[in-house]
Each structure stands twice: as C-alpha cells, then as structure tokens.
C-alpha cells in the first residue's frame, strides 16, 4: 500500500474507546453518512461501513483503545485502524473464519464468531495487517471507488 496522505481529498478521524459498547458502531455510522454525502456508490459505502464497523468492534473488544482515520482520495477510501493493546500473536490464525479469542461475556453479547477480520478482508480491495505483541495492531484497508472519474 502506498504512503498515506498522498492525494487525500479529505480525512476524518474517529477515536475508539476500549470496552465502550454503548458508542460502539458510531465511527462506522458517521463514516457512512460522510460517504453518502459524497455521493459514492451504495455498494462501496456498504463495504466501507462493514470494514469500519468490524475494525471498530475489534478495537473496542480486543484492544486498549485506538483510532480509525479515513482518507478519501479521488479513487479510493483508505481506512487506517491503529490501536494500542495486546496485539495478535498469530495473524494467519486470526484471519481464519471462526477463529476467536473472545471471552464468554463478549460472546453472550453476540460477538466472537470469528468473522470480523475475514469480513474486513472480503470488503477490501487491498488489505494489510501488522501487529506487535504487547504493543498494538495496525490495520489498513483500501476500497476503490469511481466517483472521481
């Protein structure tokens, strides 16, 4: 993925608080409104909303907090999610459908199906994830759009 910031026509940042299930999902819904205002294609918006929502939930559930920054360029939506937290020891495994380390409590709330990361990957045109144990996780998603043509 190319360096961020190049060609960003606009950027938005959302702070994500760990463990805050009440506000969880706000970043995704705010981003959705922005993309609707820009007139992007509904299916593109949907993919961006799904990726952002799942990443947001992962920060809420699995990390100590972080932020999601979104750059909109003339042909793409670049979603960068960074958190500080325990990190992911085995990324290969984490990307598998159904793999989850979510606690019993979290599962009872309806999360922890192990589908978040796979769904993010499916929604993305480009996807990359880096993680440092004991430090945090950085997820980058690019979704291409054609509104600027």
């Amino acid at each position, binding site marked *: 993925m190319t360096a961020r910031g190049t060609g960003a*026509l*606009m950027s938005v940042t959302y702070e994500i608080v760990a463990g805050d299930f009440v506000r969880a*999902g706000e970043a*995704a*819904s705010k981003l*959705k*409104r*922005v993309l*609707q*205002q*820009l*007139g992007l294609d*509904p*299916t593109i*918006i*949907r993919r961006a*909303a*799904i990726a952002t*929502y*799942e990443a947001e939930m992962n920060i809420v559930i699995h990390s100590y907090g972080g932020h999601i920054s979104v750059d*909109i360029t*003339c042909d793409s939506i670049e979603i960068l999610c960074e958190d500080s937290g325990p990190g992911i020891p085995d990324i290969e495994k984490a990307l598998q459908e159904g793999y989850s380390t979510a606690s019993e409590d979290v599962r009872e709330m309806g999360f922890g199906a192990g589908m978040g990361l796979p*769904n993010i990957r499916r929604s993305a045109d480009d996807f990359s994830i880096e993680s440092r144990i004991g430090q945090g996780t950085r997820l980058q998603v690019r979704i291409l759009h054609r*509104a*600027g043509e």
Partner: protein
Amino acid sequence: MRLQPYFHSVTLDTDSCKGCTICIKRCPTEAIRVRHGKARILEIRCIDCGECIRTCPNHAKRAIADDFSLLDKYAYTVALPAPSFFGQFSGHDVTVGKILQALLALGFTSVYEVAEAAEHVSLATQRYVNNSIIRPLISSSCPAIVRLIQVRFPDLIDHLIPIQAPVDIAARFAKEMIMRKYGLRREEIGAFFITPCPAKVTAVKQPIGLESSWVDGAIPIADAYARVLRILPRLEDTPSLQQASAIGIHWGRASGEKYAIGADKTVAVDGIQAVIDVLSEIEIGKFHDIDFIECQACRGGCVGGPLTVQNPFLARVNMESLTQELPDKMSPEIVHEFEQRYSTGAYDLESDIEPRPILKLDDDFTKAIEKMELLEKTLDSLPGLDCGSCGSPSCQALAEDIVQGLATEGDCVFVLRDGVQSLAEELLDLARRVPGSISNEAETSPGGSLQESMDEPEIGEQEGSGT
C-alpha cells in the same frame, strides 16, 4: 387530483401550522424545515410515512386521499378493504361477512379482500425466500419502508423482495375477474382501496416497481369506518363474501406477515424508528442469518396506520376475536389459483426499485468534497445543541442546509446572539469614539461596566429564545 412531479399524500396546512418545530425532529428522513414561521416539507425527502401527522399538535399535517364521490365515475366499483380495516370493529356480533356486506350497502358493486391477495403474496414470498441466496430478505409490502430504503438505505434495495404489494394484486385480480364475467373494460371498473395510511395513497398514485396501479382510488379507513358503523347493526352476516382465512386478515397487524410466511428464521419489526435501527444493523452485516424480515412503518403494524380509528392494541384484540370464526389455513382454491398464476410471473414487480439517495451534497464528486469541507467548518461554528430552533432538525442538518444555500448561519439563535453581542460591542466602541466636542465621557463610567451588564442576562435570554 392533479399529479405533481412528486405526488405526496402527506401535506401541510399552512394556516394551522404555528411553526413550533415539533415535527422536524420526528421526521425519519429529515424532510421538514421550519422557515419564516411555517413548516415546509421537502418533497424529494418525504416518504409519506405519516409520522408528522401523528406528532403535529395543531393538526397541520394532513393526508390527501380520495372520497366516496369518486365512486360515481365508474359503472362498476369494487371495494378493497385493507386487512387492518377489520380490526376497527368490535362487538360479539360483528363478523368479517357483515363488514363486507356493509361495504356493498355503501354503494360498492363488489368487494375483494386485500387479505385474500395477502395470502397469494405470502405464498409467492415463501417461494422467493426459498430460491434466493440473499439474506436477510426484507418485505416490500409497506410502501413507507420501501421509500425509506430508497432514500436512506439504497444499498439494501437488493434485499427487498420484488413482489407486488397485496393491494396491487387484489385490484388486478378483482378487475380481471369482473372484466371476464361482465365483459367490462378495465377503465369502466373503479377499484378502491380502504387504506390505513397516506403511504398507500401515494403508492397508488405513484407506484414503485409498477408501470401503473390497478387501484383507482384510496379512501381512508377513518371515512369508511364512520359509514360502516352506522349501518352495521342492521345487516345480516354474509359468510359467502369472505374468502380470506385468518392468515390473510392477520397481515393487518404486526407479526401477521411473518407468521404467514413461516420461514425458518423470521423477524417482525414495527415502528419506523425500530425499522431504521434494524436496517442500520443490516448495513454493517448483522441479521445475515435471518431469512425474512417484516418491516412496518407503523407501531403495531397497519392497524397503527395514521388513517385508522381504533387504538392499535384494541384493533389487534378485535382482529383476534373476528378471526376465531375463520379457518386458520388458506383455502385450497387460493392455493390452487396461486400455483396457476405463479408460473406466469403474476406476482413479480414489473421494474426495478431505484435508489434515491438524499444525502448527496453534489452530483459532482469534486464539488461534493468542497461542500463537505465547508460543511465541517460550518458545523464547528454551530453550538452542537441540536435544539431545532433554527428550523432544521439538528446542527448537522442546518450545516447541510447552509452548504446547500437553503439557510444561513444567522438562522442559529446562538450564532445570532453572539452576532448581536459583538454588534453591540462595536456600537459601544463607536459611541466611545464620538467626537470630544459632543461627548461628556469624563462624567460617565467607562464602557467596561456596560459590557458586564450585557453579559449578565444571558440565562434569561436563553430561556426567552426557545422558539
């Protein structure tokens, strides 16, 4: 009734509107603004759900519909009572047959229950749910919800089941039958829906997914109710008129449709705010293992429609006692007729449901970005109280209106107050610069104290600026 480019059943009676701003916050598509002391409905945003009719304390929001005089225009008329119509009547001797008989007594040549068509639609929906891989599938029977999805959730259009609403099926089947039987032409027959809501009135005048509607008029349940009630006690029960089973009749209340579809995993949602919440969740990938979702704009389902009379909870009880006498299975005739018609595509929508996104700031992406920047800046300058005093439903909406040239920052009472304050300060400053020859400044106190006294009444001022 003349058709405008956008026909809306829901309209504003400007004389009754006091400009109170109560409606603007309740509108699910932010389609109402108060400007110059009067509400205004933004036509492209309105989905005719009727929430504002329910909320307006001055009854300034009305539903335009048809009346009984329209019957005179046709040689032959057929009444199409909505399933929810039956829920309006209570009393141990009331029957579906009597209510249908009453409609004939009011001057309709025949009746065709929309509940019967609802049974056909239930069967067609079952097939569609079984054959489609899309999940969750969303019912398209409530037109307010279809329009809500077009404007606010265009990415969910694929999830809408492309099957005609029961009333459209009812009108077509009834007319086809009458045409065959009496050799009449389509135009000679008037089909009248007895409607629970303005959304259906709009759907009839301006159908979605159909070239033209077979329904010729929509008469409010409230109007028909008053007339039926007067004659009901004098009538004999006419069981032969009634075709639908309890299954079709229950479409008139929340969960009735879900029950009729009977798929594995089904959900019924009623009340437009609850529907919005569920649709927002579907957008982020939830509900993906649910087969079918019934979505109704009105709380309690159609018995809660703005043009009904009875309390929706009572109406539900009424329906339960009325249907006790009815079979709880569809008749073999209906199932047979369905099988024959299904293969001909009789239930399919004729055209696609188009998205109508309303939030888009500009058709041109670059311009939309520019407006977006301006929007953010504008929003920063607003207090974020979402008080509605400006006539827009929220600070965000006012900022959007400003960017689109529909409002100015001065519409915000708080921005205005700050403006007035700095203007006053400027005036004071000017006053101090009055030429020495006419000033007696030495004897009065300096401007500072006046500045203080201006700050003081702030709280009182705020209270006074509530409207």
